[in-house]
């Protein structure tokens, strides 16, 4: 059982892991998710689905830190946004193919995560959240002034290019399958990390850091490694998003974006594998339908925050798992 009031998902009676560290119920949920993303583009607008996929990967990356290490990073927009800017710059100015551009986005997110993580893991809990937020705000001001980001205009007209220089992505369906592929790789990577021996140490840090230290683990190294992995995947998500939409702007590095990814994970369920995906889908759908109401989106997002924290801390997937008595 997770510590009461902590951020980890709840563990129920032990279920055998069948394939790739998935339990039976997780395998079923994974099948449902994949089936949905295979069928969905024939019924729903692919551009909308691609947005969901990008944010789902972003939220999964964020959840790796809070759900499995217990670190609340309130500045994940920095890695997402910078990944987006650099991927956009690489595709547009340097003329790289999209997969290289996305990898550059991930590398930039990871490097930034290495520096910021190194600074931030010196403090814990609330301080860690405040430090990551402040560092991300520094990145925002940097992007506001740096010449290559285009300031208020952002980087526009980023070409989608051709995957591996062979498959043109101008077609929405081709772009969709690419995005879905990126998401799936990221998702499985996070799943693999969480279920590796490394991931077990992360969870022990979440549960009781002093004890993990006394068992001989250099907890700071583990936390930093997790931070870098999370930031890298956030950068990949940001990079993919700017390739899909052909634009990278200040919105993606602003603190509101950091808040949104927290909200997505919270709504879906912190510390669950599928929660961030569901949360991203819910929040993006809501934003889509409420776009015309302007500031009401902010009000409703705030209200969801309050509601989740006060009455709904397990999130959607966490509640379903609790109801079915399985870990999802």
């Amino acid at each position: 059982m997770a510590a009461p009031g902590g951020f980890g998902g709840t563990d129920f009676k032990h279920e055998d892991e069948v394939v790739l560290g998935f339990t039976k119920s997780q395998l079923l949920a994974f099948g449902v998710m994949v089936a949905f993303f295979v069928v969905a583009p024939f019924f729903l607008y692919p551009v909308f689905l691609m947005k969901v996929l990008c944010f789902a990967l972003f939220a999964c990356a964020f959840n790796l830190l809070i759900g499995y290490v217990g670190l609340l990073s309130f500045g994940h927009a920095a890695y997402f946004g910078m990944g987006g800017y650099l991927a956009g710059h690489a595709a547009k100015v340097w003329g790289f193919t999209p997969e290289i551009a996305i990898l550059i986005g991930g590398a930039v997110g990871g490097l930034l995560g290495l520096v910021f993580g190194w600074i931030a893991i010196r403090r814990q809990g609330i301080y860690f959240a405040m430090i990551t937020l402040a560092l991300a705000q520094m990145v925002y001001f940097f992007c506001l002034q740096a010449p290559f980001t285009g300031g208020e205009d952002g980087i526009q007209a980023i070409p989608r290019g051709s995957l591996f220089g062979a498959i043109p992505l101008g077609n929405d369906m081709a772009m969709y399958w690419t995005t879905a592929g990126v998401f799936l790789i990221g998702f499985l990577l996070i799943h693999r990390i969480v279920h590796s021996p490394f991931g077990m140490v992360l969870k022990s840090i979440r549960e009781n850091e002093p004890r993990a230290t006394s068992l001989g683990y250099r907890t700071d190294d583990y936390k930093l490694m997790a931070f870098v992995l999370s930031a890298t995947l956030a950068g990949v998500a940001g990079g993919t998003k700017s390739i899909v939409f052909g634009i990278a702007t200040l919105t993606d590095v602003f603190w509101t974006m950091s808040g949104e990814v927290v909200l997505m994970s919270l709504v879906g369920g912190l510390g669950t594998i599928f929660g961030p995906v569901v949360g991203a889908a819910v929040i993006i759908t809501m934003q889509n339908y409420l776009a015309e109401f302007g500031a009401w989106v902010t009000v409703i997002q705030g209200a969801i925050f309050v509601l989740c924290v006060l009455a709904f801390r397990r999130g959607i997937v966490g509640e379903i798992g609790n109801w079915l008595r399985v870990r999802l």
Partner: protein
Amino acid sequence: MDEIFGIPAPLLFGQLLLGLINGAFYALLSLGLAVIFGMLNVINFTHGAQFMLGAFVAWALLSFLGLGYWWALLLAPLIVGAFGVLLERTMISRLYKLDHLYGLLLTFGVGLIVEGLVRNEFGSSGLPYRIPAELQGSWDLGFMFMPIYRGWVVVVAIVACLATWLVIEKTKIGSYLRAATENPALVQAFGINVPLMMTLTYGAGVALAAFAGVLAAPIYSVNPQMGANLIIIVFAVVVIGGMGSILGSVVTGFGLGIIEGLTKVFWPEASATVIFVVMAIVLLTRPAGLFGRA
């Protein structure tokens, strides 16, 4: 005294004064955050929104009731403080047993609600608020002109910080507060109503933020975002100073304001990020903060 380090003196002193003003707000806000955190173990993310509410209440008192600046200075902290008390009683108090980060998430959400509602009602563009007649004009200090209102803000902020320090360090209620910060269970066992103290502490911290908001109204335009952008800088200030000492928050607040002002003179491009850079350097050398206890 026309030039100092090759910089025209009026420019240098002007930016120093501006730095002092910003420092005054950093000090007032980080003080409120520190007092709330000490007692409730909650980082009040709504602090920025409450600062903004203070300014808006001042504006509304003037526009709808014709009550001017001096009334606002008294009433706005009371009104916003009462909102804080309500918030603590109905929501924040439910989270004390959970991970402290839930308090941060909750107050962040409340901040979004408040900011969104205000933006719906008044739009994003700023509302003007005039400097009260008694404080208009400026003094000629010989080397620069000093707008009276700005001097007033700095002085009032220092007085408010000193008053808070006196209340906490020198009065009986302050000693209860310090004791309850150290060990709430024991203080409760002595028959002191700790939950009530927590509520009032939160209310007082919020009132301090609203007070700062009223002070800020005539300087900055009164707009929904005025608090959100400020509060992130204040978080950095809190990390630099450490939340252990009241005097520490005040000194750090003013000090960083001045550093920011000087950066505007010598390297304008870096002025928006200098406080965050200072934060990073402090974390690398003294992780507990300048005045913090590890």
